[in-house]
């Protein structure tokens, strides 16, 4: 089971065409996820995490966002190649997504019950009649800890945390094989964050759903994920099973920086060490390694040549630092 690949992304390129420039949001991204596993997608804001999720669902903004290269395989099927009809069947039923901001993810003019039922209505083979759907909605609400009577309430009658539970209920209503959770807790209070995460974890175990958890909170990653991919400027710069990222010796300077910039209660640090500088403008990426302008260990080659992917078992690092002594992918 662990070896069965559910999601495989290869060399994905996504460009946003805006009025002024072309924004290279995802560049040469490669990822994979096994069934029932949890992948943590980590990176700063603007690193392309959300774009990656949207690409998987093929929900990039119409006319603006475009996949310019690479492939996404879900359950062995090339998602980018299938028709819109087929894709719609996958959405909601096989892949579901939880968006970052629960406040705006629910349609204000429909009751929450209706919005959960909707996913079932269009896909589910299991819940067909109205009663079955109603029952399932109530079941789902109960599952996420909301009294089923509230299904007729409108979103504005719920608080943020409750809304996120509704969103989760909605996402899981059809028992999807893959759940894309795009920073599901960022917009929430810390206490509620924990509840929501716990909920996702419980449900994942219960329903055997694979999860892509997008976050920039390494603590969460450590708690929930089986593997991790660190993204920077639209590409994965380091990835592998959780132990290789949180343990191990060799890390990408950016990952090091990322870890350094969060307070650690166990290790006494005098002060946090933030990464200097800002993410490069994705419309105007620097030559060579995208991280080079900010990299404390930057070398000449970094500014001219794109770094190769260096593998160390399942652990991958995309950096010139490790290029000399490790096997290099062609």
């Amino acid at each position, binding site marked *: 089971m662990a070896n069965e690949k559910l999601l495989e992304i290869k060399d994905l390129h996504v460009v946003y065409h805006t009025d002024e420039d072309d924004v290279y949001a995802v560049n040469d991204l490669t990822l994979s996820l096994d069934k029932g596993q949890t992948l943590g997608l980590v990176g700063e804001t603007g690193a392309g995490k959300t774009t990656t999720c949207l690409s998987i669902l093929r929900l990039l903004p119409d006319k603006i966002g475009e996949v310019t290269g690479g492939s996404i395989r879900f359950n062995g099927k090339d998602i980018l190649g299938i028709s819109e009809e087929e894709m*719609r069947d996958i959405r*909601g039923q096989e892949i579901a997504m939880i968006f970052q*901001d629960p406040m705006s993810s629910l*349609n204000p*003019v429909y009751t929450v019950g209706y*919005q959960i039922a909707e996913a079932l209505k269009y896909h589910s083979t299991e819940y067909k009649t109205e009663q079955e759907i109603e029952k399932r909605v109530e079941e789902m609400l109960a599952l996420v800890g909301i009294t089923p009577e509230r299904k007729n309430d409108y979103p504005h009658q719920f608080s943020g945390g409750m809304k996120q539970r509704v969103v989760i209920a909605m*996402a899981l209503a059809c028992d999807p094989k893959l759940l894309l959770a795009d920073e599901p807790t960022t917009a929430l209070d810390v206490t509620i964050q924990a509840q929501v995460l716990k909920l996702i974890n419980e449900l994942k175990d219960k329903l055997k759903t694979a999860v892509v958890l997008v976050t920039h909170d390494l603590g969460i990653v450590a708690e929930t994920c089986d593997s991790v991919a660190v993204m920077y400027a639209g590409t994965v710069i380091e990835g592998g099973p959780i132990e290789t990222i949180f343990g191990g010796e060799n890390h990408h300077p950016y990952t090091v920086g990322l870890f350094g910039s969060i307070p650690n209660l166990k290790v006494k640090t005098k002060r946090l060490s933030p990464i200097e500088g800002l993410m490069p403008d994705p419309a105007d990426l620097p030559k060579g390694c995208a991280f080079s302008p900010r990299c404390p260990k930057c070398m000449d080659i970094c500014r001219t040549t794109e770094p190769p992917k260096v593998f160390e078992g399942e652990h991958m690092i995309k950096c010139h630092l490790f290029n000399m002594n490790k096997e290099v992918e062609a």
Partner: protein
Amino acid sequence: MYRMIIKRLIMLIPVLLGISFILFTIMYFTPGDAARLLLGDSASEEAVEALREQLGLNGGFFERYFDYIGNIILHGDFGISYRTRNPVFTEVFTRFHYTLRLALTAIIISSVLGVLFGILSAVRQYSIADNVITAVTLFLTSMPDFWLGMMLIIIFAVNLKVLPISGASSWECFILPGFTAAANYLANTIRMTRSSMLETIRMDYVRTARAKGVPEKKVIFGHTLKNALMPIVTLVGVNMGWQLGGTIIIEQVFGIPGIGSLMIQSIRMKDTPVVIGCIMFIAFLSSLINLATDIIYAYIDPRIRAQYVTKKAVKA
């Protein structure tokens, strides 16, 4: 809800009084003598003077104004038309239904076509259809309505002879004027629908709906339109209000004996009670329509409904 309605109605009173005062002032200072106009060119000075006395045109400004407004407040009497000697409201009501029919035709045309083309334009953004619609919209907003009316008459009534040129005797008579009156609002509605749709289509909840695998049609007409409609409802309401008072020149072009024609005629004849009566009536109606719009708005948007219905805030 009722409190809101009552409050809004009460707030209307000072506005109506203000309107009456503004118009009374303007009409007072307009040259020309209503009595002379009524009797015609060849009437004698004495006859004119007698009529002037009879109509109460000889008093001072404030005396006449307070007389007028006093009658409205105390007796609900809006006076009689100097021109026909009929009560003002008889005059207004015999004309009003024409304007109402024109306004409704226009509003139906502009709303239905406006929303449809607006959606089409938004859904197929940057397509040929979108560009054509945008161009037509721009053209419609740039056209003086009377010129459009003239062109429509030349094309449909004179050359093709398929529609009547003027008058108000059958429903066909309202097609050309309806289109003419609708043109500007049609353009507005298209623009508004388009931008509102585009804005809503980008909303997270629309993405959520798509992520659930909701069919595109349902996404557009359910999730997006229902939200995008809200500003459009307001626009339709405002349009309706303006249509009632704004078809003056179109009524002139197409010879519809509506309230606009009555007002122009009354201004020319210095028929002050009718002018003020008409405008107060229109202002009152527009306010009612605005109120209705707000109620409809509340009906569509549960968030606003909640404000009026109950104050209970549900916390998790």
